[in-house]
């Protein structure tokens, strides 16, 4: 168990989950964006550590790629939306912050319970951390449900994505490079599209709070 790569790996994973919690914790959109960026860095480091451990240059490369895209490029894309947003904070989330943080704790427990079989199946030091990947995904979901700002929704979506990517890194030695590239491209494009849409919502219709999106219903 006391393999040299375990501690940095553990730490990087903890960075991912704690930043996921931070996006729920902080009301300021700038702060949650910063947390998201840090999360991308943590994710990239996970891939790099695993790659270095398995002597897999492709995985290290993927780690660098993830770090650049999720740690830098995507947060930059979203920061425009944040800059337009006034007053730049999550006004009144559906569930207040203490309750949603407790919820996040419960979700983590749930993730832990749900993945026991999977962890036992894979049985590597990295696999022990799978619950955190799943927990990050669940926290992302939770954030999307309780947060009402356009930016918060994008951040929640990306948290889900990061959680799944984390699970993938920990559970396998990463998906093949072609798939990884395709996935990254998709995510990047999706964020770009969301940015444009958020711009439309804001400029044309002066909508920032998604509760205002009530035109379409049955």
């Amino acid at each position, binding site marked *: 168990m006391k393999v040299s790569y375990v501690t940095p790996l553990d730490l990087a994973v903890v960075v991912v989950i704690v930043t996921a919690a931070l996006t729920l914790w902080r009301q300021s959109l700038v702060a949650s964006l910063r947390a998201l960026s840090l999360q991308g860095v943590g994710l990239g480091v996970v891939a790099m550590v695993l790659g270095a451990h398995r002597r897999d240059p492709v995985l290290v490369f993927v780690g660098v790629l993830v770090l650049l895209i999720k740690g830098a490029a995507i947060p930059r894309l979203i920061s425009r939306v944040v800059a337009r947003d006034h007053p730049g904070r999550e006004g009144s989330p559906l569930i207040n912050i203490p309750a949603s943080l407790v919820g996040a704790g419960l979700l983590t427990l749930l993730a832990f319970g*749900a993945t026991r*079989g*999977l962890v036992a*199946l*894979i049985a590597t030091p990295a696999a022990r951390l799978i619950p955190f990947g799943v927990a990050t*995904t669940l926290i992302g*979901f939770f954030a*999307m449900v309780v947060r009402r700002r*356009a930016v918060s*929704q994008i951040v929640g*979506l990306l948290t*889900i*994505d990061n959680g*799944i990517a984390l*699970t*993938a890194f920990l*559970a*396998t030695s990463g*998906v*093949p490079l*072609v*798939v990884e590239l*395709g*996935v990254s*491209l*998709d995510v990047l*494009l*999706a964020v770009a*599209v*969301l940015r*444009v*849409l*958020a711009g*439309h*919502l804001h400029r*044309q*219709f002066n909508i920032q709070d*998604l509760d205002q*999106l009530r*035109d*379409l219903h*049955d």
Partner: protein
Amino acid sequence: MIYALLATPLVTGLVSALVPWRRWVPLLGVASLLGVLAVALVLAHDALHSPARALHGSLAVDPLSALMLLVIGAVGLLAAIGGVRYLDLQLARAQCSTRQASLYAALVQGFIAAMLLTVLARNIAIMWVAVEATTIVTTFLVGHRRTRGAIEASWKYIIICSVGIALAFLGTILLYVASSHTGGPASLDWATLVREAPQMNHAVVRLAFSLIVLGYGTKVGLAPLHSWLPDAHSQAPAPVSALMSGVLLAVAFYAIVRCRSIAVSALGSDFVRTTLLISGLATLVVAVSMLLAQRDYKRMLAYSSMEHMGLLCLGAAAGTPLAFAAVLLHMIGHGLAKGVLFLGAGEILELEGTSEIAQVRGLLARRPALGGLFALGLAALLGLPPFSVFASELGLVRSLSAAGLTWVAGLALAALALVMVGMSAPAATMLLGPGTGRATSPRLVRAPLGAALGVLALVGVVAWPLSLLIHAGATVAAQ
């Protein structure tokens, strides 16, 4: 051949995006779809004997994908022709700039290409990438009219579908993990996965399959993550609604069918059947109950799409070759009928200026051609003979009871009856009654709709040109 198939829409899309707007750009799109359909026909013919492959077998056409290619090509062609009319009207009224018109033309081609890639890919992760790409491409198409409702619909669409599809990716990853613990090499190749499945860990595959049904189910419009569907279908331009309802839903369903083979091979049919039954029935309940309360005909059509996807899901739950033959025939029938209806509905909206059922009266009297086509389309959708939906619905119900799911067959019949009542009453309001002031739509609108209905009737009466392919496809799907 496969390269040509993918390249046609991609090149057309690039050209439409890059050259300055010309009147021939939408016509080029029609030509591209004609090309796609032609190549798809050739590939389908070949698929019966020797499946075509490309890129070291990572792209391949078996009968199942060949059938999907045909659906994409046929409904795509219908939508491309509808697109010519849509762009004409938008530009004429200065509701969109030429730049946006070019963008529309390019995105439709990209949309087609992404769907083609979905059904061609053997790698289930590439398949996922392609499905996600369809989401991204169509978001702008849904919001193309730039009204408040359209932007709202496209926001909901991309958010809900991205979340759903992310779940499907997690499921895909889990299948990959399961395959890496079978002793064989870790793989994402569909055929390899089906082969390795019996050695897979059951708990992991169960989790993976549930996530995949939930995830791709979002795109199919299966409950509970269906809420984007009526919004997007009612707000998108008519040709885009036609494409989404007629093809995109089916393509996402195709992804579930592929993953179903892996799950069945790993777990046996019980778990898979239960999962699909639950989502199918839930979808039916939601769709039927919402459909009965609709006052907007485009939303009504959207819920009807959900209802049909629920039926497909039930067919997949039965899982016999007979059931899949019915499912595939139903996919074709629904795709074409919905294409006709959405384009027709777009034309009605165009002429009447409202999408409220109650505001439209005496359509048959005032616009006999358009009204007639819409009525025939409805007849086709509701499963009246001679249209093929009649045959496929009959087949579905029969295969359900043959698979020991008689109660499900009963429920499905009840749902069909309710829908029949629920849709024919508003249809009667819209179509019948006196009216004054005749107006006609251009032949460009009427001819393709008529042709599509003709094909539907032809397939319904003599399944001949397709029956071999459908049976071969069903055998692949039911593996």
